[in-house]
């Protein structure tokens, strides 16, 4: 099977280019396996991130034939040859498929992704009913691979100001948590045209999420809550 891999080493190359490889594909082979095989057998200078190999760590987000996905859980057989592998779009390239995710993490940090309590902390756990706990399903599973935010045009144009789908999914994860007590502050922090409202419901995030989460729905719920708190 023919592979085309985005190559760019800022120390040596003036511009990025696509390098072609031919690789014998095994049944059940994942993209990460293919990249590792290419690195082992053909060109050890190919750079990419990966770690757990089972869709848990979120290290190996890549763009394959135009679609963001996790290399370790996406079978090569899902794609037609040639398989073009590029880094996640819109991020500065460090080298080959390795991108600089600093802005993505800054946006995550900006939504204060932790419980904020005003009451004194109890001696034991803060209990939740099963229904309250259920609110967090579809939110807490995010592994921060960055596939969604780097597929979002609004995040491409304003990555410094728009939080992006990943951070907004987490914003909703804490807004809807029965144990959190900073709803007003969180909503105030999201007001303005950028942080939340650059989302135009394009839904690329929903399409690419390897965990089948729905940031667009979470963003809609934040807007709804904001409206309810405003009138």
């Amino acid at each position, binding site marked *: 099977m023919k592979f085309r891999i985005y190559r760019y080493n800022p120390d040596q190359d003036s511009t990025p280019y696509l390098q072609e490889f031919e690789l014998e594909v095994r049944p059940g082979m994942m993209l990460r396996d293919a990249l590792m095989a290419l690195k082992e057998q053909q060109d050890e200078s190919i750079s990419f991130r990966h770690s757990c190999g089972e869709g848990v760590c979120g290290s190996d987000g890549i763009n394959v034939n135009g679609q963001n996905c996790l290399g370790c859980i996406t079978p090569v057989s899902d794609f037609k040859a040639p398989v073009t592998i590029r880094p996640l779009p819109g991020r500065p390239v460090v080298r080959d498929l390795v991108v600089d995710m600093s802005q993505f993490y800054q946006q995550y940090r900006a939504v204060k992704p932790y419980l904020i309590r005003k009451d004194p902390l109890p001696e034991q756990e803060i209990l939740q009913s099963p229904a309250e706990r259920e609110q967090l399903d579809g939110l807490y599973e995010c592994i921060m691979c960055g596939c969604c935010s780097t597929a979002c045009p609004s995040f491409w144009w*304003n990555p410094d100001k728009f939080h992006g789908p990943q951070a907004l999914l987490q914003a909703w994860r804490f807004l809807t948590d029965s144990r959190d007590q900073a709803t007003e502050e969180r909503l105030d922090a*999201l*007001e*303005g*045209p*950028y942080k939340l*409202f650059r989302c135009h419901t394009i839904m690329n995030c929903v399409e690419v999420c390897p965990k089948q989460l729905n940031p667009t729905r979470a963003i809609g719920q934040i807007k709804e809550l*904001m409206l309810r708190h405003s009138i």
Partner: protein
Amino acid sequence: MSRQATGLRAWVLQRISAIYLGIYFIYIIGHFLFDPPTSYQAWSGWLADPFVAVAMLLFFAAVLLHAWVGVRDVVIDYVHPIMVRVTLLTLTGLCLIGSGLWVMRTIYLAGASA
């Protein structure tokens, strides 16, 4: 927050104006389909009805609001140099206000000549 353009208000205005536009489109297309005015007299007589005139004025107000939020969104997304952005938004605002005033004049004159 006061030095920022609005987020929630613009979004809500866009949704509400969209709903009105949708309903009005059904009404106006239905009207022209089933009961089209046959002459200028019939047309201006129809517009002399205050309900018709107000509904139409509201329609154009909704169009202008909707257009303002939409253009503002596009400019915020794509136009980053601040002077270009201010110029574009100013021109858009002037065009929209001008169009609105002209529409008011047109609807008033059409109704008045009945």
